[in-house]
């Protein structure tokens, strides 16, 4: 089917007589045009364009992509600006204050977005702090304002916030914790840690999974056997007790950043078997395909075979299953920190925040301490839908 060569300038070449190699790159479309008598086919879409077209049809997955994009590209990089308070700002007059409501009308007149000042009273009968709105004192919510000082990305000192409370007023939209710190701000700061931990853990498990799964699938035999047994062993162990044991082994006197990377390593080290198994199965299956045989016969090295001929065939599938393993890691970090064996204060993550909501009395009296579970559920759901959409788009026949 190969195209006949254009008449060469040199002595005429008879393709039947000598071993002839066409200099021009092989173009299957032109070749098939010639075979089909010059009928032009519609331009074939690239595999990734097809993938994208199929993905877009999955509405829930697209919506989830937006949600994840909002978290990863707005909140994670700009947490300091979006949060109305700094991470450790304490308001001693608002300990365990309930969420404040936003108002628009004061005394029947439109007064912009404002909150009423909080007035604390100690109830001596029940020994509780009771907070009431002081309806005579509206405090404006400022937008694009200067508020608590912070170091942007730990580098530049700034005071700029998206919105902040009026001078002397308070703005605790989701209430405060037992030290008078603003919950909304802390949830926003926690987003950064909770969401990146899943990605770094995923990177570790991805590399391990692809390398070990690829080795097992490509070489087979003894290597395959050893890796398969290892996968089976790790998959048969209960994850959480192992995580707990590994997390307990992290020295307590390590700085927070080391603990952070320790936890990501722990999450990644136990997560790779699922991915390795998927890679192994695909490589095993592709190894028998004829185009791989052809590439082998033309002398492609094993590395080139895997990278150029096999990997593109299941990379989209791989990305989809990797996406589906992120929520497990986010939940794992939350569980570890909740039990007090993962990240610890002063680091703020959603799990660390939930650690305050450990006993029933806290939930009964201060239900807003449970609010960090809302972003956890939202992000985990979004990852599940997004991953499902990717998988359906990658593999429409399943």
């Amino acid at each position, binding site marked *: 089917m190969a195209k006949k060569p254009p008449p060469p300038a040199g002595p005429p070449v008879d393709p039947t007589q000598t071993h002839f190699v066409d200099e021009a790159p092989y173009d299957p479309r032109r070749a098939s045009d010639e075979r089909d008598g010059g009928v032009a086919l519609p331009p074939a879409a690239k595999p990734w364009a097809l993938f994208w077209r199929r993905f877009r049809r999955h509405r829930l997955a697209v919506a989830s992509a937006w949600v994840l994009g909002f978290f990863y590209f707005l909140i994670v990089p700009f947490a300091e600006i979006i949060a109305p308070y700094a991470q450790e700002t304490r308001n001693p007059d608002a300990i365990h204050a309930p969420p404040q409501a936003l108002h628009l009308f004061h005394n029947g007149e439109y007064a912009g977005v404002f909150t009423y000042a909080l007035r604390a009273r100690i109830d001596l009968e029940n020994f509780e702090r009771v907070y009431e709105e002081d309806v005579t004192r509206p405090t404006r919510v400022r937008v694009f304002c200067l508020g608590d000082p912070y170091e942007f990305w730990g580098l530049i000192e700034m005071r700029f916030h998206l919105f902040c409370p009026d001078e002397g007023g308070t703005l605790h939209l989701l209430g405060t914790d037992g030290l008078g710190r603003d919950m909304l701000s802390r949830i926003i700061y926690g987003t950064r840690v909770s969401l990146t931990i899943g990605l770094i853990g995923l990177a570790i498990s991805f590399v391990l999974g692809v390398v070990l799964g690829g080795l097992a699938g490509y070489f087979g035999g003894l290597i395959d056997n050893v890796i398969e047994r290892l996968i089976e062993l790790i998959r048969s162990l209960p994850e959480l007790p*192992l995580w*707990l044991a590994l997390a307990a*082994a992290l020295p307590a006197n390590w700085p927070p950043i080391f603990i952070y990377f320790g936890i990501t390593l722990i999450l990644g080290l136990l997560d790779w078997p699922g991915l390795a198994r998927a890679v192994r199965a695909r490589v095993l299956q592709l190894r028998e395909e004829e185009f791989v045989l052809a590439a082998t016969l033309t002398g492609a090295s094993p590395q080139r075979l895997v990278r150029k001929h096999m990997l593109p065939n299941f990379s989209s599938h791989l990305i989809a299953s990797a996406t589906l393993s992120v929520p497990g890691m986010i939940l794992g970090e939350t569980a570890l920190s909740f039990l007090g064996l993962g990240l610890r204060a002063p680091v703020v993550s959603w799990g660390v925040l939930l650690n305050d909501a450990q006993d029933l009395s806290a939930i009964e009296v201060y239900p807003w301490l449970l609010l960090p579970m809302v972003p956890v559920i939202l992000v985990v759901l979004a990852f599940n839908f997004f991953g499902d959409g990717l998988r359906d788009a990658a593999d429409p026949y399943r």
Partner: protein
Amino acid sequence: MLRYVALRIALMVPALLAISVIVFALIELPPGDYLSNEMTELAARGETASLARLQFLRDEFSLDAPLIERYAIWLGVMPGSGGFNGLLQGNWGWSFEYGKPVADVIGDRLGLTIALNFATILFVYAVAFPIGVYSATRQYSWGDYGFTVLGYLGLAVPNFLLGLILLYYANLWFGLSVGGLMAPEFIGQPWSMEKLGSVLAHLIVPTIVIGLSGTAAMIRRLRANLLDELGKPYVAAARARGLSERRLIIKYPLRAALGPFVADVGNLLPSMVSGAVIVSVVLNLPTVGPVLISALRSQDQFLAGFILLFAALLTVVGMLISDLLLAALDPRVRIGQRAVR
């Protein structure tokens, strides 16, 4: 069949050995141990009298022996010089934190842990099976959508939080006492019908909480398997012969979809045992979970090691049972071919 069972059980031995190596490595990973920490503390305070007692414990459990020797002693294949002879000899070691043998610390809790996990598996089977069949046979109905949404939520809500919330409402609406596996007045009492009832009532919340994510996964799996089968020509053929829909589904596609369903329970077990640990901590259940956490925190090595081993053993035995069930259902497995997934 007998040959398969024997082979399958024989295969467990190397797996358990490998697990014991991993567990031993894990509990040896943190620098120092419970006794050495306490000894430094006592020496700093100048209390030399208690030091002798701790040194006696160190000698009894051969804690100063080389690593490999300690492993052999702990496993019970080599008698220790101090008189400790290890797991295989039925000696689970000593809990330094409680000052009691490990067997005394968690003896009662083992039974309850097994009971809780068993109840959870029953729950998953009993709930996932009818819902999965319903969802597949009435695909895209309101019920199907409802269960799908519920399933996704079950996967996304961290089970410890779900536990806290359910417990709160169980207390508010039904007056169940908070936490524990029985009402406070039954603790320490001999078993009676009332006590059994109280235990069963208290098992409801933890079982639902632990089983929910597993149930959600199983429903999705069974639904997908059954949908695959329902589209096959043999179903159309049976329908054409006038078989009633109910009889048709039970006779053909359901049987084909059942194999993976049974096998998958084995795959879900590790996550269930994990879930039981954390939920037990939150709900303060008398299982091994809360003890494991405190033992890991204080480096109470024999206690932590035994519980880790026990948790792994639970999943390994559970997988054995699910494999044997699968073999009973599917003759191809018995003969040695892999089941077609």
